[in-house]
């Protein structure tokens, strides 16, 4: 490269060599918009389904057991208490998911954020949801595992919880352990790695 303004000169040289890009037509735009809308919807629905499907299984299990053992007050109370414990967690989860995938900067008249604000906003939203998810996991995983173990042992294991204290504890511990392994992998992929990447970007923007 030549010594003065070399970078700018080479860049201009490159620009001169470029072929004229094809213009975007109305048809291209329609295709792009349709495919992006589908993609956005898919991303959101995948996440929502993954988060809620476990709870659907839990509610279905409790409801079925409740109906099947209509008249058995102990079982009915157990199912009712389990559902009552979990409903606030489901409501909180749905609210947080809506916040995570909402677009506060897209209110009419709001300006497009600069790169720093954009990264900062995205980091804040993701970190906030991750914080909530960690709290929810700490409460939700033991609660749901306990409900399933309690109901299963009461209904299907001879002697119930009382007669199988050690067995039920082992099943509970294994279930919690497996859930924690799965949650750790999910957190790493969906939250820890992206947050670390955003942190690096923010550090780079803050400390030059």
């Amino acid at each position, binding site marked *: 490269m030549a010594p003065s303004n070399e970078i700018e000169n080479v860049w201009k040289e490159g620009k001169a060599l470029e072929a004229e*890009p*094809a213009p*975007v037509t*109305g048809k291209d735009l329609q295709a792009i918009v349709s495919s992006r809308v589908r993609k956005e919807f898919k991303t959101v629905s995948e996440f929502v389904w993954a988060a809620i499907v476990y709870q659907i299984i839990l509610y279905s299990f409790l409801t079925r057991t409740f109906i099947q053992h209509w008249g058995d007050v102990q079982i009915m109370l157990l199912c009712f208490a389990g559902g009552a414990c979990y409903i606030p967690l489901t409501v909180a989860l749905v609210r947080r998911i809506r916040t995570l995938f909402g677009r506060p900067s897209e209110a009419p008249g709001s300006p*497009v954020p600069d*790169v720093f*604000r954009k990264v900062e906003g995205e980091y804040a939203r993701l970190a906030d949801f991750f914080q909530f998810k960690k709290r929810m996991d700490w409460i939700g995983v033991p609660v749901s595992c306990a409900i399933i173990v309690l109901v299963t042992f009461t209904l299907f294991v001879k002697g119930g919880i009382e007669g199988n204290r050690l067995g039920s504890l082992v099943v509970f511990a294994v279930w919690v352990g497996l859930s924690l392994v799965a949650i750790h992998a999910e957190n790493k*992929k969906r939250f820890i790695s*992206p947050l670390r990447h955003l942190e690096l970007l923010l550090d*780079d923007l803050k400390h030059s």
Partner: protein
Amino acid sequence: MSAEWETSFLADVNQNIRIVHRVCHTYFPRDAMEREEVFQDIMYQLWKSYPRFKGESKFSTWMHKVALNTAITHIRRSTREPRSAELTEPIDHAPDMNEHMHREEEVRQLYAAIETLMGIDKAIILLHLEDQDYDEIAAITGLTRTNVSVRLVRIRRALKEYVERNQ
């Protein structure tokens, strides 16, 4: 989307379409499929944000801001789903830069040097080379004017060193 709105949007965007291609090429020089995906993402973001463009800045400045925001966000997302295969297939809308870069070693080296920069430094040098002044670069990136100028000195030095090392 009304026909009038769409015509106006397409006219503004097509006048500055090279901005989108340059951002895609600077951030994703090796993967044609990813470049096409980011191109579409940027077009979608432009389409969504267009009603909020009030002409307070130049259209090209606004377009740079949207394009860079989208490209940087895409890098973050692609760390979640890394692509293993390196693809070099040309994309429909992009100018065939690769062919020219092969012919022009200096240009190729400059792109290779820019590729080694961090995300935000890529944005700064790209904006500088696209004739955006320090105030515009500061407005797009959210950095201060001084910060931009200090970084540019450092970036230019890094690019020069890279080129000298690889000559």
